[in-house]
């Protein structure tokens, strides 16, 4: 099981929950299940989100494994200069 903390912008799209628990071993599985449980999330998940696992930002790498008990954040994908 993985506890995912949602970026503030996503909270209203997930029944106002700040953290959600999901059974997932890869980023792909995590995002797919989130999209199924909260359809409103599937839009932003497509290209506006980065997944942070134990402090490391994964911009769009679905194959990335999620270790058991890792801290997982859905963060907004950032622009830089």
């Amino acid at each position, binding site marked *: 099981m993985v506890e995912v903390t949602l970026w503030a912008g996503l909270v209203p799209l997930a029944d106002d929950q700040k953290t959600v628990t999901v059974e997932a071993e890869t980023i792909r599985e995590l995002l797919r299940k989130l999209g199924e449980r909260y359809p409103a999330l599937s839009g932003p998940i497509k290209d506006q989100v980065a997944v942070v696992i134990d402090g490391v930002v994964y911009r769009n790498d679905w194959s990335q494994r999620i270790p058991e008990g890792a801290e997982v954040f859905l963060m907004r994908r950032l622009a830089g*200069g």
Partner: protein
Amino acid sequence: MSFDAGYQSHKFKSVGTRPLRPDGVDKVTGRARYGADFNMPGQLVARVLRSPHAHARIVRIDTAKAEALKGVKAVVTAADLPDLTNGDGALFAILDNCMARTKAMYDGHAVAAVAAIDENVAKAALKLIEVEYELLPHVVDVDAAMQADAPVLNDTIFTTGVDPKPETPSNIANRSEFGHGDVDAGFAAADFIVERSYKTEQTHQGYIEPHACVANCNSDGSADLWVCTQGHFVYRQNCADLLGLEVSKLRVTSSEIGGGFGGKTHVWTEPVALALSRKAGRPVKLVMSREEVFRASGPTSATSIDVKIGARKDGKITGAMATLRYTSGPYPDMWAELGAMTSFACYDLENVKTVGFEVVVNRPKVAAYRAPSAPMAAFAVESAMDELAHKIGVNAVDLRVMNAASEGTKSSYGPVYGPIGIGPTLEAAQSHPHMSAPLGKNQGRGMACGFWFNFGGQTCSDLNVNADGTVGLAVGTVDVGGSRASLSLIAAEELGIDYQDIKAVIADTATLGYNDMTDGSRGTFSSSMATISAARNAIDVMRARAALMWDIPVDDIYWEEGHAKAAGSKYGNLSPLSVKEIAAESGNTGGPIAGHSEMIADGAGVSFGTHICDVEVDPETGSTRIVRYTVIQDAGKAVHPSYVEGQYQGGAAQGIGWALNEEYVYGDDGRLQNPGFLDYRIPVCSDLPMIDTQILEIPNPNHPYGVRGVGETPIVPPLAAIANAVSNAVGVRMSHIPMSPPRILAALNDAAKG
């Protein structure tokens, strides 16, 4: 082909040295070709007609007279750029900004454009375009735009991120919130509290090369764009989307780029040039004037920030809060959110809350400017931290050390930190000779910390081993500050050959796979990871070729110091095969030798910096002189130290200009008063001392050589470091950037009056 990006520490032969960059000779002889240096036969010259009003409905545009003028070949308006964005708000904003569709949203907003045989005809044609405007009330100030009675710029914008969802449109496009714990409880437990409001004016990246491109659309749907850009693949995507072109048929070539700093991560006139070329059936060259660059490219946000920090007598912060209001120009984006995320990122806080408000105003569309949104937030927070240190009576650096984030700290924007360099930069600052050097009359010393996220992203590189054993490296990230030299060093290191035997180039979009925008200080980080991966791929190919040449199993061959070597005593008589020797036989052993890499470079790792600054303030005129400046920053691994130093010095210089003199000055009519290098004052050579740098190397565990991004963090601390230095020099706490002489003198006068 799985690629292990894990850090393996080893003794470097090439990485860390300071060779001459491969593009140096072209640049010092004037042969390097920038955006405006490219011409196509039969090209037309384009000029853009821009709104002289801050906010106006476009009632009617009559281009008949312009089109009739001899020598004019095409005139375009928004009608020539049909909306193909089908609901993608961000893309529609780019389209509307390139050419206003219903309303001119700022002084300088494009409303029409002309392509003609020469500049004089084009200029004359602009005067013949009749535009009927219906003037609307405007607002340019971030706080004024948030008032209830402010003119609403866009009645389709309803504040998101608030509950319940508002019904009436607003200039506040989004509210974002970050943090953890209970700040009220934190403030209650505090012995000392600092609370102050800060403002920073809008500034521009200030690259010396204005935007320039040559666009050519053929009747068969194929098209070419030669442009100065930080991301030619993203420009290709944007232009293809807006003009309905097939991505593979639009080739975008990145010219040498004359500075970007984030301002060339966004298309401004390129879609217009393509539209003109398509309509005229001829190539079109469009070069922005300096005035246009200031009025109509992408400056950073103007901000208004409130900060409140509480701490105990021993200096431990108990509560920290910031409310950050950022202008985004007419089109909302993530700028306030980035400010809210970065403001307390340097610190390990029990109770922290940051709230960001994205506010639309009648100013140009904001684009990234080197660690976008971070310098302003750092100015507010690090100024408050300095004031807090004075109040508690503790040394400014010690206060930072006591509260600095470290590995395992939960960041103020959410995730936990891996190994990070803020502690070491603070310790280096404490022991740096600058920190204990004597100060003269009217002089003061200030310091500040800064942070930036850094990114990875989609990256690919091609590495071709030529028949003579030399290597061609093609990358897709743009080189402004010497990354071709750095990436050649990386390839040399991994292949085990000499730097001189590698030539790195920036490939155009037709000859290399997609690469993300070169932003987020990702250039060297991502392309070096892809280059290492491509090199390892090439090594495997060369080992296989050596196996064929020696006729032994490939598993018995290992690669070391640029040679294929046969493992095990039974091959005693086989002398190692060099890249040159293997390449010479490539015709017989399977054809050209190459290594490719297509990957998502992740795990970029944040970058921290601490700056120390001495200033001398003339109390009679309020003029500030930078006496000494030191930049200390963690690079993970400095691939080419000279160009890492260059990033530190360049970022500091931009920060100094921002802190002291640079600002967009708007008149009451909402028009930009200083769109030029005379009155938009960036630092000149005689304004600055030498800028000392110290590179720390705390390896990034997620990069084979430990490399971190370095390009953006250097601009984050200077605003605060200089503000703290001025405060320590003449005892007035400056809370409005830039600290121009009139502002400092007024503050001194107020202080004198008591």
